[in-house]
């Protein structure tokens, strides 16, 4: 029994922080494109079906084009795709799965897609899927509660491999400082926590989990596949997303799990410290290492700190503009502070012929160096740079 475990497609995710509209559209669209790639992998690997552990859509109210695009991509896979709603697209009144448009598009474009909207066992290609869908007004705990009901599970076929399909965070003792593993930026609500210990040990052979966007094994039999296409900047070094899991399974055995990379775009974080004006070359090298000089593939969160002279600051500004053009997104926190070099200082302060300018510049430098208020320093730096630029322009006139 071989299948693919994926989750957290988040179709229709707005990527609101990407300022460029066209790039934003690209990133959004890639989430659909990567679904097609899952299909390719599944066929390559001869998988029997695909399970999606929740959050197929990013919200419960996706727009029509997203619905159509998703159905179309799923339809192209050609294999059965079994999905449950997650905390983003939970089932219930008003959910996307109840909308007439979705139902029509799913029927027309993706007859292989089956969304399970009730906690129940479902048989697919010889496997039994114990679905724990997220539903409106119910916690994840409640979603899995039925697994403890002997009445409900008693009649399950004995020899078929069983897969629990669930969505939610779990207690994660391996993560050290973090009590939960959860990817939602808003933090973890108790309502979306699953307690794996509450699930009868031998009930299932594999637990396919969704919600955590990085690929992660949390139990002998329990895995988060992570999202198929990266959608955020990693917080940990061992965070890996953009994968699906190829699972081999027999009833009563231990699952064999193999991550396959399907993701397209890179999401990277980088911190860089300036200690001298020559460090700008270092920055260039570091970024090239990360991107391989590719264009239109990267989203980066960059933090620049340290001190530099006016010319360097100007160059850094220009460099960042270039990166902005090349990347799908550059989110840069520029904490680089001005420390004019001797030459610059001379140019500003030592102006015997222009007594006013030199005394203004001297006062600004003093203000900037005073260091009791960050904002005042910033403003003084800005003023100094403005003055510097005005002088350069003025002197050429």
């Amino acid at each position, binding site marked *: 029994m071989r299948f693919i475990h994926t989750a957290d497609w988040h179709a*229709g*995710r*707005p990527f*609101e*922080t990407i*300022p460029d509209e066209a790039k934003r559209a690209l990133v959004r669209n890639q989430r659909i494109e990567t679904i097609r790639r899952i299909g390719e992998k599944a066929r390559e690997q001869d998988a029997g079906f695909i399970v999606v552990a929740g959050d197929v859509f*990013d*919200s*419960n*109210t*996706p*727009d*029509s084009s*997203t*619905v159509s695009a998703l159905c179309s991509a799923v339809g192209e896979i050609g294999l059965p795709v079994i999905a449950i709603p997650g905390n983003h697209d939970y089932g*219930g*009144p*008003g959910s*996307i799965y*109840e*909308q*007439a*448009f979705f139902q029509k598009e799913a029927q027309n474009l993706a007859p292989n897609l089956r969304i399970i909207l009730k906690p129940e066992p479902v048989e697919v290609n010889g496997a039994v899927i114990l679905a724990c869908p997220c539903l*409106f*007004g119910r916690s994840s705990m409640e979603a899995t509660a039925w697994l403890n009901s002997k009445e409900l599970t008693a009649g399950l076929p004995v020899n078929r491999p069983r897969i629990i399909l669930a969505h939610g965070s779990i207690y994660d003792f391996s993560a050290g400082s973090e009590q939960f593993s959860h990817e939602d930026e808003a933090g973890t609500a108790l309502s979306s926590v699953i307690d794996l210990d509450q699930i009868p040990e031998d009930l299932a052979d594999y637990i396919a989990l969704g919600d955590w966007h990085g690929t992660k094994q949390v139990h002998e039999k329990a895995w988060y596949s992570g999202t198929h296409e990266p959608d955020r900047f990693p917080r940990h070094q061992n965070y890996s997303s953009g994968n699906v899991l190829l699972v081999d399974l027999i009833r009563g055995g231990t699952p064999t799990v193999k991550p396959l990379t399907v993701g397209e775009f890179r999401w990277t974080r980088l911190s860089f410290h300036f200690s001298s004006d020559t460090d700008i070359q270092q920055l260039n090298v570091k970024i090239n290492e990360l991107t391989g000089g590719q264009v239109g593939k990267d989203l980066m969160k960059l933090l620049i700190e340290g001190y530099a002279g006016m010319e360097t600051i100007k160059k850094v500004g220009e460099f960042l503009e270039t990166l902005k053009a090349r990347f799908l997104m550059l989110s840069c926190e520029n904490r680089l502070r001005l420390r004019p070099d001797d030459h610059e200082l001379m140019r500003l302060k030592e102006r015997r*012929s*222009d*007594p*006013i*300018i030199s*005394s*203004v510049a001297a*006062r*600004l430098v003093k*203000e900037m160096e005073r260091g009791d208020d960050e*904002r005042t320093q*910033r*403003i*003084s730096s*800005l*003023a100094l740079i*403005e*003055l510097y630029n*005005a*002088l350069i322009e*003025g*002197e050429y*006139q």
Partner: protein
Amino acid sequence: MKLASAKVKNYRLHRECSVEFDPGLTVIAGPNESGKSTFIEAIHHCLFAPHKKSGQFLEHIKSNIYQGTNPEVEVVIETSQGQCRIEKVFAGPKGHVYLEQHGESFQGERSEERLLELLSVDKPGPKVGIEKLRGYWSHLWVWQGKSGENAASHIEDYNDRLLRALQSVGGAVVVQSELDERISDIFAQRYDEIFTKAGKYKKHSEQAVLEQRLLDARDEYEKALQEVNRLELARQEFMDASERIEECKRQIELLKLEKEKIEKDLQQAERVQKELEKRQGEYDAISKTVHHLDQVDRKIKELKKAIERINGEKERLQRGLSKAKQHLHHQEKEILAIETEKGRIQKRLSVLGNLIRFYDGFITLLQAQEQMDNMQKRGERRREIEEKISAIEKELAEFPEIDKTVLSEIRKAKTNVDKAGATKDAIATGIEIVKADLPVVVGGKRLLAKDEVTVTQLTEIEVGDGVVIAIRPGGGDALQKAIEEEDLWKASLSRLLDRLGIGEFSQAEIMFEKRQALLKKLDRLNSELKGLGGREEDEAISRMEKEIAALDAEVKRRREAVQQFLDSHDRDLFSARHQAEAVKDEEEKLLEKNRDIEDQLKGLRAEQETLQNEIFSIEKELTSLEEKAIKIKAQIETLEGEHGTNEDRRKRLAQERNRFGEISRDIEALNGQLSILDPAHLYERFSNIKNELDETQRALDVSKQIKNKAAGKLEMDGSTDPQAELSRYKARLDSLEQEFEMAKERAEAIKLLHNLFSQEISRLADSYSAPLSQKINTYIKYVIGPEAKVKAVFQQDTFQGIRLSHIAKGVEFDFDSLSGGTREQVSAAVRLAIAELLAPDFGGSLPVIFDDSFTNTDTKRLEGVRTMLSMAVKRGLQVIVLTSNQDDYIGIGAKKIQLPPQRPVLVQQTAGLNQGGPRKEMDHPVSALSGEDEKLFMKRLAERGGHCGNKSLMAYLGWDEERYWSIQKTLVNKGRITTGRGRGGSVEIV
């Protein structure tokens, strides 16, 4: 450079006036109209005005007193290179100039150029106006009325020179560069682009635009949030409604079951109820029968009792009837006795009536006879009187008919005769013959001695022969008239007497009296006769006789009827009347008795009738009772016929009562059943459940509606993803916030730059203005005190003015905000300081002229002003002070020059000036319309509270001395204002 001397000729009011100035301090004093200002103006014109200047300028300075002359001014200047003498004659194109310096002399333009070079000023244009002209050296030359102006405004043309001077004394070490200025301007401009004057962001600045976009983005975010919340709410509503629907359905099932059960019980209760009603019907029927039988029994008994009652009543009535009949019989007897008595009284009454009639007739007869006697006596008396009357009438017939009228006519005629005679006698001349030795004939009549005659007309008196005397009595016509009148009246009198047949007037009176006495007697008799009735009396007597006869016959007839009742029969009236009254008394008594009997009879008859009625009614009652008894008997018979006899009825009653007991027991049992079922309670529960069912059904419907509505809300059109929208708006809001923060910082940076540039520029300016400030302070400390500090303000290298700060109070003042006195003192100090600074360029000295420049300064400060001026002189300046109050400058060590008072300017001259058309650039507009000026003077004085110093009013009016004093004098002469004391004098509205 100093002014050494000046000579002015034919210049306005000056014929000729020359002054030699002290190299230090000169005080030119003079009363107000002495022409000090004119004199100093002439010097200024000599130095700066083009000598060929004509037009209004020339008209203005020409003398109107010394007609046909041209103004001439000569000024000698002391320079470091020696003296320089300038002579100008102002005569328009014919004017000329002469300059002498170092033994060289120049004329015309050449000398003008030379002079201006010396004075270091630009050449004025040919059309330079008077005001512009006055601007030359105005930093040194304080014109009258201008002492309070900002000295900086007079330095414009000398600013560069002043700056150079300041630099030379070490003021400005550095000067801002062109680049400084350019960069500063750039940031000033950029600041202006961003900020308003109030320090807010300008409308279209980047910051304001961003701020607005931020607000809009926040709105959009809020809206998106609302949309998402709305969906969330709808979802919750949907779920709640679904739950309610399930709950309602469950309840409806339960209620329906309960309802069925109650319906079954109700059916059972209805059956019992019907059975009960049937039994109740039977029960009612039996009880009706029993009741009926009881009633019949009771009725028969009642009827029998009634018959007994009727019989008793009948007996009682019979007894009453016989009693009434006895009573009636007794009554009838009594009535008969009374009626007999009544007949007897009637008979006697008839006799009495006849007697009364007899006496009436008899009395009448007696009365008529008595009347007859009287009448006969009166007839005899009448005949007696008639005889007397005829005797008197006979006597009267013999008398003439002299009555009162005739007598008065006679008397009148007599009186008139006497009157006329007397008149005639009075007029006529009396002649008395005293002695007649010769015959005297008067009027033809011989008179003897002792004779007297009266002559009434022209009468001739003959005495003897040959003596005729004509006497003409006086009176003229009157005498004649009197004579004629006398004759007339005498004729009338004798006519009257003749008619009566009386000889003399005296007899007429006697006759009249006698006749009157007879007439009176006749009247008396006639009136008595009238009282006796006259002749018709006789007819009455004969009528009476006939009447008496008739009465007598009647009396005889009546007597026959009563003869037997008459005792006596007196013929006298008195006794007849007495008897008649006795009869009438008796009649009256009998009539009363008769009435009593009538009354008694009436009462008895009424009683009789009542008894008869009583008897009748008793008999009727008896008959009716009889009938009643018969009817009741018939009823009893009918009832017994219908319901059987007493025995039958008892049997039937017993049967019915038996059945009654059975039914009562049945009813009790049924009632027991009913009370267990309690249908009332069942009905109540039934209706409650029905209501509850309805209500639950309604709640179900409502919930379904809510659910449908919520479902509708949840149906998405798929055009957008509200959640994604919300995220996007949030992101945009965040990024705009960040952008705005950055833009604010950029704006702050520009603001910082702008402020720093302004501060540095002003600091630099302060540094080179310091020597000027210090210089000013060395002067002003004498006036205001050491705690006041003046700061010269420069902007863009230009002297803008000063600010005065009070160190102790820590306050600063603008020049314009200072008081008038302080302004003129500070302004003087500034001028002295500037003059001192500029002096090195002019051989170390410059003259400073103050024309009445301290008019607002009080006595205390004036001391300081004096010290300040002395200090200026010590520092090498030449100071010339013009004042109308030379006492102000006592003890100052000045050369004092007194200008003699001059005659004020006449008006004609200025009137001529105005003919040329509208005045332009007239600094001294001496108005021809002095009436207008007077009005203006009064108006301004009133504005100043009606009381004002001459100097300050003059300044307020903006007039020169001539104009002011001429109008002031005029108004004083007219008595509209009075002068008062004070420095420079004062005026007050009368």
